[in-house]
């Protein structure tokens, strides 16, 4: 059996076993099964990377045909899987970061009942399986299946605390908003199917040009695909589900934000770059959506007081960077940032989980501060994560962000305006990262005395993943050091076979420009972190409770949707209920009953009146009628 099936099968089997038998096996067994399933998947995925690395660069593209999914005449779509540098890299990332999040969850969810614990781990495994289906797909049908499975698992996990109305609502919101994107994705798939008569990547992507470069069809396909990507990656106005996804358990947020789900959009654009490059309009839309989302979300993050909300908007903002990168043809830079972001964002969320554990679920940073001595491991690792997020020099986030911005400015399809937006975002990011760290860990505490004294670090299952992720976040930058250093750039070399057919790629910024930009970023980051320190790092940092203004209200997007869709829909549904259902449909049903009743009452009183002579008259009348009928119809023949 092809090893790729082990990568998919292990989490699926884990999910099935834990879901069906976990409640009986107990918490330890559930946790072990779930973690081992992911460890096995990670091991096999790493072996696949090694196997692929051993083959020639142009042979690193293997389609593993599977059973037939759908067969219609000449059209066939099978459960085919693709092993290429991009897919196995994503598989390693998903399983690796996923494994650390699983380990963290072992302790984080320890207070749940056995049945809930098993349900949680089963869903977590299932989530990883869904994402693996998505990244390993070799045709659009399997990709779509993974796409939908990811949506389903996110719904299950965001609404994990199902007795809480807000959690159930958040799950529904995530699912519904994603459906909007899925609609676009599905339409694009239909268009591709009618154009190519196939859904295989190998049929469509190498021959993408037959759609016609710059044609309306190519632009439509690319824009519809991007609508799907924007839904999953929380871009543009479709971001609204991600902040609400905080209702799930915190490690789930880490999983959604780092390894699975939100990266799907970036992955999709990178995977289908041949289609996107046909239409410069679509690429412009991608790049600008990414840039504006990045800036907007950074602005919102700077105004939040809930640490999970800050992190949620920072994810949206960082995803904006990735989308911006793939929108200017810098796919490797986008995947690079995806990679470093997966580490530091998982780290930040798990750190957040650690804080919540220490403070019994407190999330408001107005009631934190001064925690650095109480939670030393969390503090240092969180600091590393925030430094990566802010883009402090020499961290992973710095190099990947620099790579993106350099190519946005100086790449063949770069645009100084886009760069300016990205640069402004970097400045705001540095500010809110500093604000987050300083308000949580520095200054004097705003906690109750008891809560502050009682705060303590969790066990090894808390600290282990944090330390591993912190190391990963720091080291991830080494995969793509700047070109002018002349060092090997393993990520670029690794992904090169995937993007050889790209016509949008090109050299990055020249050495002096690159150095200058780095200096500029360093100064900017330093200035804005210092600004945050001067505002929030001091002992007497003021408490800000302002929840008004454009950014503090998430850009009024929820309100806009409420006005545009929700109210209209509710009014329409209310009208349908009151008029169509109650009056028309119920009225029709009741009218049938009334007619029967009325007719019955009339006949009972006037026909079935109990008078023998009346009955006799009916018999006579009926007999006469029959006689007449016989005479007219049948009698004519019998009397002849």
């Amino acid at each position, binding site marked *: 059996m092809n090893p790729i099936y082990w990568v998919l099968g292990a989490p699926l089997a884990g999910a099935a076993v834990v879901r069906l038998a976990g409640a009986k096996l107990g918490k330890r067994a559930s946790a072990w099964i779930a973690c081992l399933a992911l460890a096995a998947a990670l091991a096999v995925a790493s072996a696949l990377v090694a196997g692929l690395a051993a083959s020639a660069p142009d042979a690193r593209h293997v389609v593993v045909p599977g059973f037939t999914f759908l067969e219609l005449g000449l059209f066939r779509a099978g459960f085919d899987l693709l092993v290429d540098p991009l897919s196995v890299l994503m598989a390693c990332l998903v399983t690796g970061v996923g494994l650390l999040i699983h380990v963290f969850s072992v302790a984080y969810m320890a207070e749940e009942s056995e049945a809930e614990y098993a349900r949680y781990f089963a869903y977590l495994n299932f989530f990883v399986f869904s994402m693996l289906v998505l990244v390993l797909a070799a045709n659009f049908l399997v990709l779509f299946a993974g796409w939908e499975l990811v949506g389903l698992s996110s719904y299950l996990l965001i609404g994990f605390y199902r007795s809480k109305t807000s959690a159930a609502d958040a799950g529904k919101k995530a699912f519904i908003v994603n459906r909007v994107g899925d609609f676009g994705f599905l339409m694009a798939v239909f268009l591709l199917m009618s154009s190519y008569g196939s859904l295989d990547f190998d049929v469509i992507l190498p021959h993408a040009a037959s759609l016609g470069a710059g044609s309306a069809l190519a632009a439509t396909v690319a824009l519809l695909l991007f609508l799907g990507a924007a839904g999953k990656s929380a871009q543009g106005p479709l971001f609204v589900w991600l902040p609400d996804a905080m209702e799930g358990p915190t490690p789930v947020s880490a999983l959604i934000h780092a390894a699975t789900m939100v990266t799907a959009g970036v992955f999709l654009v990178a995977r289908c770059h041949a289609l996107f490059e046909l239409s410069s309009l679509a690429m412009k839309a991608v790049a600008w959506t990414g840039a504006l989302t990045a800036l907007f979300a950074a602005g919102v993050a700077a105004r939040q007081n809930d640490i999970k909300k800050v992190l949620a908007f920072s994810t949206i903002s960082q995803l904006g960077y990735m989308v911006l990168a793939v929108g200017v043809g810098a796919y490797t830079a986008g995947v690079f940032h995806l990679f470093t972001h997966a580490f530091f964002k998982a780290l930040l969320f798990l750190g957040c989980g650690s804080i919540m554990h220490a403070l019994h679920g407190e999330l408001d940073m107005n009631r934190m501060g001064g925690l650095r001595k109480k939670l030393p491991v969390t503090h240092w690792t969180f600091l590393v994560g925030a430094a990566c997020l802010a883009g402090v020099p020499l961290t992973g986030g710095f190099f990947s962000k620099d790579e993106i911005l350099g190519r946005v400015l100086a790449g063949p399809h770069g645009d100084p305006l886009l760069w300016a937006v990205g640069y402004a975002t970097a400045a705001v990011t540095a500010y809110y990262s500093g604000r987050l760290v300083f308000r949580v860990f520095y200054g004097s505490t705003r906690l109750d005395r008891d809560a502050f004294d009682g705060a303590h670090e969790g066990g090894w299952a808390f600290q282990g993943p944090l330390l591993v992720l912190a190391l990963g976040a720091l080291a991830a930058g080494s995969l793509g050091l700047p070109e002018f250093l002349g060092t090997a750039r393993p990520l670029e070399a690794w992904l090169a076979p995937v993007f050889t057919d790209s016509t949008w790629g090109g050299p990055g910024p020249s050495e002096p420009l690159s150095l200058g930009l780095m200096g500029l970023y360093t100064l900017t980051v330093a200035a804005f972190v210092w600004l945050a320190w001067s505002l929030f790092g001091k002992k007497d940092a003021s408490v800000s409770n302002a929840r008004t203004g454009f950014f503090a209200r998430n850009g009024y997007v929820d309100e806009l949707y409420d006005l545009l869709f929700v109210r209209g829909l509710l009014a329409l549904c209310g009208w349908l209920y009151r008029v169509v259902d109650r009056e028309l449909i119920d009225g029709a049903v009741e009218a049938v009953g009334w007619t029967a009743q009325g007719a019955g009452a009339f006949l009972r009183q006037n026909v*079935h*009146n*109990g*008078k*023998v*002579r009346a009955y*006799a008259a009916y018999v*006579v009348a009926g007999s006469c009628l029959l006689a007449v009928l016989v005479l007219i119809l049948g009698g004519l023949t019998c009397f002849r």
Partner: protein
Amino acid sequence: MFQVEQVLVLALALFATGVFGVLVRRDPVVLFISIEMMFNAVNLALVGLARHEGLVLGHALVLFVVAVAAAEVAVGLGIIIALFRARTDMDVDRIDELKG
């Protein structure tokens, strides 16, 4: 001198008279007499046609009908007597307990 048409016309007249009696009279005994008239009108038609066709079976059937009618008369009169015992008023229009 036997003519089947005369017999049938007589039977029709008798039957119509019976029907008329059932419809217009309200005394149960007269009603009953009218029913018997209809019965015998049918019997007459049957026996007349049997003779016209030369079928002995028809004559035999008439004898059976007469016997069954006798039994029916016994039952019907029994009902009328029972009714008369239960109530003095014998107008059939007032006897409407079978009304739904």
